[in-house]
């Protein structure tokens, strides 16, 4: 089996995990999670990140990742669990009382793989920046990755961080923006048009590249590999990755309706049928 097919199978299982987590508690954010399934799979399973599932908070001598748009926790939890950070069947506890799998990720409950709480939007880029600076001080040549939502870029703190990163040549940082064009109240175009994202990052001094189809595994792997090759050259690297919210479930795609809504029993069955079991359900 080709590596790409293996990764696609992994992603299909992750989609099942996302749907089942959200369905079980009738809450959570399936849309953005499904859209970023290929990205997370590539990072943790596709050889993009050098990482250690035994997990150390400081993350020295390994690549580390920060999720800024914390509401897409179901995809993060599924990929971390299936990458050996914690038992996969813990996904059964998502959003339940006394769980380590809080609605939005947190360090507070000690879940391996999580290095900062996120959920209140706009803060992840700054934290990633600090961690990247710490790596430079520690003479650790590994990379810091961050994922941000496009709607999240409406928060001003991002632009403080974006300015700082370029101004201080933080070139061990790869920030990926999930361009799905949707947010809670509608499309980003209708809620608050943000104009030309590529031009904006470039104007701030970043090296910007694009992944046209962030749900095509080969493109994601190639794009992130290319992004890695652009690090260490005096500029932070931005990857603008176009994805489809709700990817892999036909009735959830191309709409903001499933941003924060769980499928009912019937909808779950339909969605799971479109994503047949590959690695085994938890």
């Amino acid at each position, binding site marked *: 089996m080709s590596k790409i097919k293996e990764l696609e199978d992994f992603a299909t299982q992750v989609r099942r995990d996302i749907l089942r987590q959200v369905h079980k508690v009738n809450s959570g954010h399936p849309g953005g999670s499904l859209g970023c399934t290929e990205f997370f799979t590539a990072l943790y399973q596709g050889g993009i990140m050098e990482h250690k599932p035994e997990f150390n*908070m*400081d*993350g*020295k001598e390994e690549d*580390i990742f*920060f999720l800024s748009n914390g509401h897409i926790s179901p995809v993060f939890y599924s990929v971390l669990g299936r990458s050996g950070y914690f038992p996969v069947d813990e996904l059964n506890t998502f959003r339940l009382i006394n769980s380590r799998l809080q609605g939005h990720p*947190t*360090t*507070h409950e000690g879940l391996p793989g999580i*290095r*900062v*709480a*996120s*959920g*209140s939007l*706009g*803060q*992840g*880029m*700054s*934290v*990633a*920046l*600090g*961690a*990247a*600076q*710490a*790596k430079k*001080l*520690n003479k*650790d040549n590994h990379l810091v990755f961050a994922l941000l939502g496009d709607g999240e870029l409406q928060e*001003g*703190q991002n632009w*403080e*961080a974006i*300015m*700082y990163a370029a*101004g*201080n040549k933080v070139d061990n940082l790869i920030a990926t923006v999930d361009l799905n064009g949707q947010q809670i109240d509608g499309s980003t175009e209708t809620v608050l048009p943000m104009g030309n994202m590529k031009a904006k990052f470039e104007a701030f001094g970043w090296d910007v590249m694009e992944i046209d189809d962030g749900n095509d595994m080969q493109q994601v792997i190639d794009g992130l590999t290319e992004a890695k090759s652009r690090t260490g050259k005096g500029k932070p690297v931005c990857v603008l990755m176009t994805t489809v919210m709700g990817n892999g479930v036909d009735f959830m795609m191309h709409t903001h309706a499933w941003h924060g809504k769980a499928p009912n029993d019937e909808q779950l069955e339909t969605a799971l049928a479109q994503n047949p079991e590959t690695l085994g359900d938890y």
Partner: protein
Amino acid sequence: MKTYIDTGKKDTRSGFGAGLTELGRTNPNVVALCADLVGSLKMQDFIDENPERFFQTGIAEANMMGMAAGLTIGGKIPFAGTFANFATGRVYDQIRQSIAYSGKNVKICASHSGVTLGEDGATHQILEDIGLMKMLPGMTVINTCDFNQTKAATLAIAEHDGPVYLRFGRPKVANFTAEDQKFEIGKAVQLYEGKDVTIIATGHLVWEAIQAAQKLSEKGISADVINIHTIKPLDEKAIIKSVKKTGCVVTAEEHNFLGGLGESVARTLAENNPAPQEFVATQDTFGESGTPEQLMDKYGLNAAAIIKATEKVLKRK
């Protein structure tokens, strides 16, 4: 009665600067961040000696707090400095999520707290920061009284694992605590032993409490005076022990009476040993422009106000 000697007026912020400089020499993990107020925070010596360990974020406090959180991931001990208003109210959510909830070992170092920043007025003053910070689970809150104590506190918090809010000020105030003091987080400092009233003060009001106790003694009133430099965790034992003896209490702070030291003391006493209490603090108001002395006088934050509050609370015993 013990005499406390003012060895020369100095600002508490310079105590922070001196402590940070010493940490730069002794603790290689200490890093510093500032949002365009290096001179005000007295950070220049640290920067001169450790340029690679300093991060100038520009006028971008939210990013500074997030970066500080990130720097801990890699084992650094970040000291993030700016004015108290911008170090708390402006970035409350960043501190809440990225630092406190995430349990990050960040030291938030806040200068120009209270009204004694003076002429800049209410936009730059803050009288609610102790309340904001003490409400955050896991946050240690420290408000120091003079140069020496601020320096000692700066050194001590580097050894403490967890988020800390260290609050100090702009004006030059009496420097009267020992140069070689040991700063113990959460441990009250007994300044006078007395039997009639307990006076509990923090920050710039500690020196005023000493002056008040001396004047009260001339009137035959003996005051138990406690310097509470750590508002959270509060030394409840010391407070309860003293008030059990005296039966009444005056709290004194350069902060709103809502949410500050006084309320923490009141809660402790309500739970353990209810007693009449008077609050020397601002009365739910913003500050304004003026010299520090004028403002302390106008808002009732000095020895005279402590004496008045003592006479009032004694009648309620």
